[in-house]
């Protein structure tokens, strides 16, 4: 059930009706959980068992962590359980394929078949959310949740269940301890977020995907310019797709009186790679920072090579989280290299004196380089794309000017929003007019077939 479908509109209307009616009773949480499970069952009812199992294990682990003397063992149990689920459903195929290749190389006469496993939607998100609870309880940063229903609602909360933001128990569970307040302000905020998200997803991301897919599905047929613009298209597509989804998720939650964290903060206006990762998929970046990078020692581990190692490991794991393919691992590794290479440069006075717009363009283009590996259908394709871009191969780029004019408009808006021209955007008439035009464009551009969100596959 995608947010921008009629099925969801009806689902949300019915669940909101029950939610509002039950809010003054002790049943509102039960209703919220039931609605979340119905939402998830819309993809595959069988996977409900999986989410219930994962929830039950971490709930019990939480209770054990409070009283058991073998706390470390219980934490390990939670981590292993979640990572096993993730490993089995998401990475089994990747490991089997690589094992088979290895056996072929080493002439070991063993055949490893590719396991036919369906990836449960959102597994990367809910397992990480659930793990963060166990870790926080273990370190004493969070009180144990005694109510199974509340804990299950935290893990499965439908606005953010399938593609985040990956909420921390510290931020979300306390909100579920009290009856959420449905206010006019929250409702207006929610609608605003939802409408902007809808425009980003259905008008922009789905539009860009047509061009990006066309170029990336047959890269050897295109010249340098087409491949560059195809990469630009994908860079904005993934931002509008995931950013739009998050806006909608936050909007839906806010209508329900629940605050979800900001996940994207104008990432393509970042002036450094560190800045970029503080703005892009914030809930995941901060998860890796808090539960991988800092436990590894973070940037306080002494010699700089240790810090670099911590950055590299965190980023490669983050790449692997995004998908079971070498392209994602390389994507993570290139990001790590970039981050390591610029960590000291960014502190340098010379770098600080570079005009902001130049830094923004440099960061954007570096990120675009990494997106080549993220989007390419294979490692060979990624290398072909880079070779052809570098080879200055001519040919008709077939650039849809309207599409890139729309991107330019959004980019200028973002720049203006973060500059002294911000006051120009304060006019009520301008904002109402802009949103009315955006909605009209949405109606014009929204296709009859709704496309999946990119991050659902992770």
């Amino acid at each position, binding site marked *: 059930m995608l947010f921008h479908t009629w099925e969801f509109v009806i689902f949300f209307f019915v669940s909101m009706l029950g939610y509002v009616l039950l809010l003054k009773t002790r049943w509102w949480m039960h209703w919220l959980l039931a609605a979340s499970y119905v939402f998830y069952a819309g993809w595959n009812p069988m996977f409900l068992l999986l989410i219930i199992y994962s929830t039950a294990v971490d709930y019990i682990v939480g209770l054990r962590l409070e009283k058991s003397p073998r706390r470390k063992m219980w934490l390990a149990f939670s981590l292993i359980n979640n990572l096993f689920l993730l490993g089995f459903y998401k990475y089994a195929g990747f490991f089997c394929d690589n094992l088979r290749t290895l056996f072929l190389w080493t002439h070991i006469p063993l055949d490893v078949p590719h396991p036919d496993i369906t990836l449960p939607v959102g597994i990367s998100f809910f397992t990480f959310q659930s793990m963060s609870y166990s870790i926080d309880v273990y370190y004493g940063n969070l009180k144990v949740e005694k109510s199974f229903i509340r804990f299950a609602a935290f893990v499965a909360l439908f606005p953010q269940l399938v593609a985040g933001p990956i909420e921390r128990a510290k931020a979300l569970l306390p909100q579920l301890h009290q009856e959420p307040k449905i206010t006019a302000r929250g409702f207006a905020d929610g609608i605003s977020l939802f409408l902007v998200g809808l425009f980003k997803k259905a008008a922009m991301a789905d539009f860009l995907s047509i*061009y990006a897919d066309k170029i990336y599905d047959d890269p050897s047929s295109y010249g340098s310019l087409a491949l560059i613009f195809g990469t630009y298209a994908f860079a904005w597509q993934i931002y509008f797709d995931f950013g739009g989804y998050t806006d909608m998720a936050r909007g839906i939650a806010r209508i329900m009186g629940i605050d979800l964290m900001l996940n994207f903060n104008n990432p393509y206006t970042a002036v450094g790679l560190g800045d970029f990762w503080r703005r892009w998929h914030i809930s995941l970046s901060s998860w890796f920072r808090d539960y991988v990078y800092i436990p590894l020692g973070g940037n306080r581990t002494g010699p700089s090579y240790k810090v670099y190692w911590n950055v590299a490991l965190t980023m490669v794991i983050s790449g692997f989280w995004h998908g079971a393919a070498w392209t994602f691992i390389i994507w993570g590794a290139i990001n790590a290299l970039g981050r390591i290479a610029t960590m000291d440069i960014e502190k340098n006075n010379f770098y600080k004196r570079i005009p902001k717009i130049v830094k923004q363009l440099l960061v954007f283009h570096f990120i675009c380089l990494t997106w080549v590996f993220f989007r390419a259908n294979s490692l060979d394709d990624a290398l072909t794309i880079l070779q052809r871009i570098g080879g200055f191969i001519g040919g008709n780029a077939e650039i849809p*000017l309207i599409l890139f004019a729309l991107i330019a408009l959004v980019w200028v808006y973002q720049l203006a929003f973060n500059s002294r021209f911000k*006051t120009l955007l304060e006019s009520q008439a301008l904002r109402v007019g802009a949103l009315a035009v955006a909605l009209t464009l949405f109606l014009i551009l929204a296709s009859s077939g709704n496309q999946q969100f990119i991050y659902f596959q992770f």
Partner: protein
Amino acid sequence: MTANGEHASAEKKPYEEPFTSNAIRMSGKELIALAAVFAALMALIPAAWNKAETVKTEDNFRIAYDYRDDYWVYDKWATRAASEFPAVFLGDSVVWGMYVDNESALPAVLNKRLGKMSVANLAIDGLHSVALDGLVANYCGALRGKKVLLHYNPLWMNSQQYDLSGEEETSPHHPRLLPQFSPGLKCYGAEFSERMSVTLDRRIPFVRMLNHLRLCFFQNKDFKQWIVDNPGENPLGRISLTIDAGQKEKINSTRDWVASGIPPQDWKWVSLQDSKQWSYFQSVVARLQAADNQLCVMVGPINPHMQTAASLAQFREFQQEIKAWLDARGIESVVVPDLPSELYADASHPLKEGYELIADELLKTKLVSSLAMASSH
């Protein structure tokens, strides 16, 4: 208030600042203003477009085969026909004139006999009764107090598949005219979102206008897809305010059905009691009568030579039932008599000379003869 609409005095929430990535935060009042502006755009743009755009017509105009799914154009033509012609003819490709040119289609033959442009051809290809009901309900609002010749083609009842009374999923003609949420039409298996999109098309003129533009100027492609497929072209440059939506020439040339070598067939007629097509036709009649239209129903033609004796006997039986139902309601009707075998192009479409004979029958009706009288005056 700040640029993204935040109130400085608002309570600070954990994730309040910044509100979101380049989003626009609206207050309740601003949302109401937005709804008003948006509603105005949705109403004014199609209204202005409708006024500015003209459909080019000529004598004996009929909507081109390629425009048969453009209900915006149909609506415009129906509105114009209702104001310019004393009578209109509603029906499927038999009335539209599948195998004949514009001047030989049934409404054109009637006009020739009447000596004046009296009957507008409002038929479109593939318009079975279930779709006709949707067409009349949603795109024929202008048909009020008119003389309406209405075609009922029993051929749509010659199998459960065409009758739409079966349970097996089929791809009916004019799916956008079908009732979208009727539990009775089990064979129509569109996705929920598709059904909603059809409903929006009917209710929101802006959406209908977009579908019309897409069909007319953008090869019926999604706008996004078209822009990517035609990167050098200006989409606005393709749009014209004059629509040439008339059929230019014969859609198909054919000889009589015998030449095609089809043997007589045993059709599995659906009974009137079980027929969806008949039941929706009754609804069409009720709708047109409720709008004070004077009706004359033409039943058939059906090629009797193409059927086995058993099939024909069954057909004759319910042909009489249809006639009786219409008579009982005081609705004038013509059951098209059997034409010579060589005047049928297929199971129901006549050839040019066949239309001449049918026109003779129609001229005997009160409704058409009143048009003749009006012409002579």
